[in-house]
């Protein structure tokens, strides 16, 4: 899982050139794929070009970085649910761990 860190302490998911907090150059790092659900929604009214419903989760990654991504299984929609981020067709998905 790609992320970017800054000497100011900010860490964000994915690659980013300048720190959104202080404007300095960020350093690209690799995080593990572990993730925990912070919050979620099932979206029924979707923008043009998307199919409803969309299961959206905001997860916390290692070191406190956060990522908004889709989730395929409605049963994974639970605050505190632990799982992994997988990549399919260049899109990120959250998959909950088996109980």
């Amino acid at each position: 899982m790609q992320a970017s860190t800054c000497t100011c302490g900010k860490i964000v998911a994915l690659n980013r050139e300048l720190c959104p907090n202080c404007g300095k150059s960020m350093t690209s790092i690799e995080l593990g794929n572990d993730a925990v659900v912070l919050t979620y929604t099932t979206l029924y009214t979707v923008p043009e070009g998307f199919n409803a419903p969309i299961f959206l989760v905001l997860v916390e990654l290692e070191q406190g970085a956060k990522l908004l991504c889709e989730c395929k299984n409605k049963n994974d929609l639970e605050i505190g649910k632990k799982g992994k981020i997988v990549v399919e067709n260049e899109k990120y998905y959250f998959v909950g761990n088996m109980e």
Partner: protein
Amino acid sequence: MAKVYISDVGMTKFGRREESLQTLMYEAYAHAATARDPEFDAVFVGCMNPDEFVGDSNFATLIVDHLGLYQTPSVRIDNAPASGSAAFEQAFFSVASGHYEKVLVLAGEKMSALPTTIATRILSKLIDKYERSTGATMPALAALVTRRYMHDYGLSREELALAAVKNHYNGTLNPYAQFQKEISVDDVLKSKMIADPLRLYDCASISDGACAVILTGSKTDVKVTGIGHATDFLSLQYRDSLTSFNATKVAAKRAYERAHRQPKDIDVAEVHDAFTILEIVNPEDLGFFKLGEGVAALIEGKTGLNGEIPINPSGGLKARGHPVGATGLAQICEIVWQLRGEAGKRQVPANIGLCHNIGGFVNNNIVTILESC
């Protein structure tokens, strides 16, 4: 810095309107400027996206041309759904600097001409490009915040509905409101699911409308005493808190400092309730209640018309309607009417009022304090 006062305000009824955006702006202007000398040093036009919503650009020129204000300087200000308050802020600076003496602020949007799916797509462009690539919409981000707030503070679905019920009640007392009909908790809970747990009645509507405010360096009975403005990260995933918004807290702090006021001094407030959760979170971030206590304040009626700090006596975005570019200026109009005792059946006792307008998903916020004088 010169002192800045408000002389006149006006607005159209909000809702689905047949007229063009310029016709709506003329209606608001005529409401504010009737029998006045129509000479202005400049015109500031707040409008988020006329290019896509109505197919016109160069909108500042279009408006002065339409109003017959030949040769008057004019500029359009787009600051997402905080365009109305941003235009007001820039107009304030122009008078405070002494550069201009009397200026007209117009703000409006016409959103209903397009199908809702296209309007939703236009509004989704307010969201960070990666985040919107997931399909995220404004209601989706609000739903993520709502779910986390319910988890952290024990807010129930029924309690959340009370925010919409309260603002729809206030809307019945406001002749400019899009919705002037009471609703029940049951109505909210039975409305169409948009982004779980948010339903249709948790979300502000697609709407059309316009507002006008005249600012002057000559003394009137309403003074602009403080404006605070702050931004936050564009992405929700960059933010530390999901249940409290820094752009509101910092903008409010700046406005309070400039006005030499504290939250307890405010008699009435118009806050940006684009979603019901914001009717609870905004008063907390503005310092009226501690974090997590906005729910109890709503349930106990502290934010109702007879409460200790009436919030959204106009009906807010929820009932008045939310033509995005117009909203910030509609809040100013409402507070001026409240301070002047001209708010009719929704009048509350007030000498000091506050407006809180959000741009983007709570990341470009403006807080304005107005006082009787």
